[in-house]
């Protein structure tokens, strides 16, 4: 349902000159089936319809009328109206791993499961609806720090502190011989982050050895090594438009790469502390980076301009960030267990609260987080060995 929503949304955003989004209403009406009814009952529909000009005629009327030029190119101001959100803990998978939960991704296609990786060197596949463990994938010998699920193939890529990048075939996750089909050898340090090219079969990995390595997924060849960072690489963003790769590092810089020339296109040195997390908005050409003194900066690519600075209340280490594209919220999880939710557009603080550590641990830091595709659930992985599922409480 939700992947349909995402594609639906993509089709709805058509860029005209002066970056004005105008969509006719008929384009937004999906064919009548169960999916569409589900979409219409979904309260997130207003997000997709936010840029629709009510004055625009329907497509059928446009076809009949000789002038296809829209009369008015005004956009309704789509800034988030609510001033606070109320995300509450819905479910705790206590003891999800026997170590810290260090990495997490939600299935980008069906939105039915999510994957977590922990310091116990295992990867676990969980059902998003009933949070039951669907599969346990082993193969790494140290903490699993990065997980990516491909949109094209049924593949799960995992990077670990044992310097190995592995590719698992999720269709064979219950087979006796294991589902590991490839491993990409070459990193000299632990792998902290990974990204997949949206169009090409390329895998970007980065980590402790200060390099970003680009792999050809099929032939396992290390296509290129991008050097330049002076410390561990903490997160990567890959996109199909230039810059095709953005990397953030513990040396406090963000580099936008031109992977055709294998050089840095632009280095952003605005952060004063090491950057642990960087997150891309799924529908916008913007991204956010959070450093370990609690500063969140919003950037605009391809030019790499500083777009906004978020005012967080306290100066804690940001471990993870996640973007809810349905209502434009930015989640930031801190090392001391605090989390804050910002409005992505205005940068206002909407909610600030703390996770409840599960019994047996006094404090719990949030290591990884992700919103699901529908934007109704937030999944976080924490240091109290648990995975927590959050939901927004509606008044």
């Amino acid at each position, binding site marked *: 349902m939700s992947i349909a929503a995402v594609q639906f949304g993509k089709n709805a955003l058509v860029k005209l000159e002066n970056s004005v989004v105008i969509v006719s209403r008929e384009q937004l009406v999906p064919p009548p089936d169960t999916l569409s009814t589900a979409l219409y009952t979904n309260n997130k529909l207003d997000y997709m319809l936010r840029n629709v000009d009510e004055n625009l005629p329907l497509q059928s009327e446009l076809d009949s009328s000789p002038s296809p030029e829209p009369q008015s190119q005004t956009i309704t101001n789509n800034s988030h109206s609510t001033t606070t959100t109320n995300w509450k803990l819905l479910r705790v998978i206590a003891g999800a791993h026997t170590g810290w939960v260090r990495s997490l991704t939600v299935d980008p296609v069906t939105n039915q499961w999510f994957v977590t990786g922990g310091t116990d060197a295992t990867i676990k596949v969980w059902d998003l609806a009933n949070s039951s463990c669907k599969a346990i994938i082993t193969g790494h010998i140290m903490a699993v720090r990065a997980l990516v699920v491909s949109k094209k193939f049924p593949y799960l890529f995992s990077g670990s*502190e044992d310097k190995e990048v592995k590719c698992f075939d999720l269709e064979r996750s219950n087979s006796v011989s294991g589902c590991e089909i490839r491993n990409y050898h070459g990193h000299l*340090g632990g792998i902290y982050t990974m990204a997949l090219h949206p169009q090409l079969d390329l895998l970007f990995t980065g980590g402790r050895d*200060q390099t970003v390595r680009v792999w050809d997924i099929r032939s396992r060849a290390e296509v290129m090594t991008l050097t330049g960072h002076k410390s561990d690489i903490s997160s990567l963003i890959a996109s199909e438009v230039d810059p095709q790769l953005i990397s953030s590092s513990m040396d406090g810089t963000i580099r936008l790469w031109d992977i055709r020339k294998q050089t840095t296109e632009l280095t952003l040195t605005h952060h004063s502390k090491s950057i642990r997390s960087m997150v891309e908005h799924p529908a916008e050409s913007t991204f956010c980076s959070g450093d370990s003194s609690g500063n969140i900066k919003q950037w605009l690519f391809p030019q790499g301009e500083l777009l906004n600075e978020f005012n967080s209340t306290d100066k804690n280490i940001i471990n993870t960030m996640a973007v809810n594209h349905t209502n434009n919220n930015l989640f930031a999880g801190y090392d001391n267990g605090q989390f804050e939710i910002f409005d992505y557009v205005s940068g206002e603080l909407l909610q600030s609260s703390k996770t409840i550590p599960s019994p047996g641990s006094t404090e719990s830091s949030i290591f990884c987080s992700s919103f699901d595709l529908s934007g109704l659930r937030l999944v976080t992985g924490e240091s109290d060995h648990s995975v927590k599922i959050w939901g927004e409480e509606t008044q």
Partner: protein
Amino acid sequence: MFSSLLSRPKHSDYFQPIKLGSKKSNINTRVLVVPEKESQVQVVHNDNSNSHSTLSKFYLNKDGTLNYNMTIAAQASDHRFHSSYEDTIPLKKRFPNLKHSFPKQTLATCPDDSVQKCVEETELVIKQLISQQSGEDNKESTQYANVTSSDVLGEERGRERQIQIKNYQEDPMLPPKHKLRKNRHTEPSPPAPILKNTTGSEKLTKEEQAKWKIPAAVSNWKNSQGFTISLDKRMQASTSNETHSVNLSKLSELTSALDDAEKQAREDIKIRNELRKEMMAQQEKEKELKLKELAELTRNQNNKRRHYDYNDANKRSRY
């Protein structure tokens, strides 16, 4: 478990610092010299700039300091950079009326073919890189060699052959050839010399064997199981390092004598106990006999009396 706690890879030199070439000191002195002419910016050419990492031109301010902006701008002709104060102020503060609408350009949504072009170009670059790595395009490196055969193989001499030498393309789908091994550091120094004769092992004599015999460890302070430890063992343990001042054979005799005495004493006690038991049993028997006699006596007396009483009663009833 945490690789972040490990030290950095030792021989990985990723950071290539910007070098000023071999005439570095020369340039430094020139940097320090304040230019005499009152021009705004002075340009110093770095003659040794050959690689990508060296700067080709330096722009100096009036006071002789490096003008960063211009130097970087001259260097960064191929890429962009942020160097002004304006770049540090967010766009939303500079332009408060800026509308937040930055839709993402993807293959599906982009109106022109710029994204398509970008993807295709990247794909081409990647393909080239992969083919370079796998040795696919090494057709030029094919060599031909003329070989004149000799008598060795039984062929006629002087027969000429042409041999084609080329690199075979590596199968990219083959399993990896390397093996992950840990601690592959070799011993840094040559091994220490062995200072003993290892060729032949001579047979040990009895005295040597006895020398090698290690006495049992016996403590004078700890004996948690409560074993009886013979005196000679105790002596041995307490004086293991020193020479034995006590004659051990005599000591062992003494202990054996003591053992014998103890055994004797135990036997004596046993016999005595048995005798005592027998005596007790006899005494008891005697006592019982006495009691029996007494009982019989009293019974007989009673019988007599009863008989007399009976006769008496009969006599009274007649009256």
